[in-house]
């Protein structure tokens, strides 16, 4: 049985079914991310003054990732345009570039996650607070590369502050509490990991579809190029949405 309107537009909507389906799916995605953004706004507005973190993320890396994702949005559109123009080799090249850019985006994100998950705050029994990246931890000693601060609130705003690379050696029995910069550290990091983690899952999902359309799925080109072109288009729409979400995540988490 043939599925109707996979290539030809439906008379009532004017577009083929997969495209309407993708837009309906994206509408539900808007509400999913909208709920999380609304949680971000509520928690940020409710945070006591001076406690909301600033400058905790690398702006150069965030900017680079924004440009990488924007470039991949362009290459995915051009891959579709190549299909429309019946330039299959060009499609393979451009879709391959898109895949590569998506993997680079995830690699940079992974590096940022690693940077956060190896960063610790140690509250000492004498009241001092050590903050920095973990160098080593043994049964008797913890070594951090960072700085001492008087108050935890001193860590909130790091804009314009030079990174300290002083090596701090702390005896284990002096540590009262030690916590890494994971989702449980504070509200900001909980939101950061939730929002970027969900976005990262969408990137992975998009890459899986692109890899299929680049590899085994591209066999459809030989038998039904128009249907294949439409598949590339709807996958591209999803990718553009992923780019759109990042366009707002970047300023919200990195710049404001």
């Amino acid at each position, binding site marked *: 049985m043939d599925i109707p309107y996979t290539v030809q537009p439906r008379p*009532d*909507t*004017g*577009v083929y079914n997969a*495209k*309407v389906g993708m*837009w*309906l799916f994206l*509408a539900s995605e*808007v*509400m999913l991310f*909208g*709920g999380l*953004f*609304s*949680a971000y*706004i*509520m928690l940020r*507005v*409710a945070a*006591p003054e001076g406690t909301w973190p600033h400058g905790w993320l690398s*702006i150069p890396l965030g*900017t680079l990732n*924004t*440009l990488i994702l*924007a*470039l991949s*949005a*362009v290459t995915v*559109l*051009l891959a579709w*345009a*190549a299909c*429309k*123009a*019946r*330039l299959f080799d*060009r499609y393979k090249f451009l879709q391959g570039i898109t895949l590569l850019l998506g993997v680079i985006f995830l690699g940079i994100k992974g590096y940022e996650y690693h940077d956060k998950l190896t960063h610790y705050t140690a509250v000492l029994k004498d009241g001092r607070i050590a903050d920095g990246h973990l160098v080593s931890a043994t049964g008797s000693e913890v070594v951090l590369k960072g700085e001492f601060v008087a108050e935890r609130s001193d860590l909130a705003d790091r804009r314009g502050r030079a990174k300290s690379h002083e090596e701090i050696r702390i005896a284990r029995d002096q540590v009262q509490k030690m916590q890494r910069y994971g989702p449980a550290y504070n509200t900001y990091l909980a939101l950061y990991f939730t929002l970027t983690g969900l976005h990262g899952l969408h990137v992975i999902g998009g890459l899986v579809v692109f890899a299929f359309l680049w590899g085994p799925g591209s066999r459809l080109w030989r038998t039904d190029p128009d249907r294949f072109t439409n598949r590339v288009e709807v996958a591209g*729409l999803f990718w*553009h*949405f992923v*780019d*759109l979400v990042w*366009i*707002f995540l*970047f*300023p919200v988490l*990195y*710049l*404001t």
Partner: protein
Amino acid sequence: MSDVDTSAFQQQVRRCGVIFAAVACVTLLMVGTAYAPLGAEALRIGLILAAAAVNASLVGGYLMHLFSERRAIYAVLVFTAIFFVALMGLSVWAQQDHPVVAR
């Protein structure tokens, strides 16, 4: 392969190049605003979010073809926009409903 197909593709390449350049410029402007000594925090956040909205409209309008889409797609998006605004409105409303606690 017809020449017409190739020329249409080349035109699309040029157009995409312009859009990417515009998105890159607005992104760099947005980053510059984050570092700029503007004084008022609200103004800085407002400008940064306005730049993000410009980038979003470039991606949505040109790359997702929303500037020249069918009515059925617009209908879906209008409903989405209504529900999205209601969602954000509920958040703001809930925020106003909190008792004021002296800190």
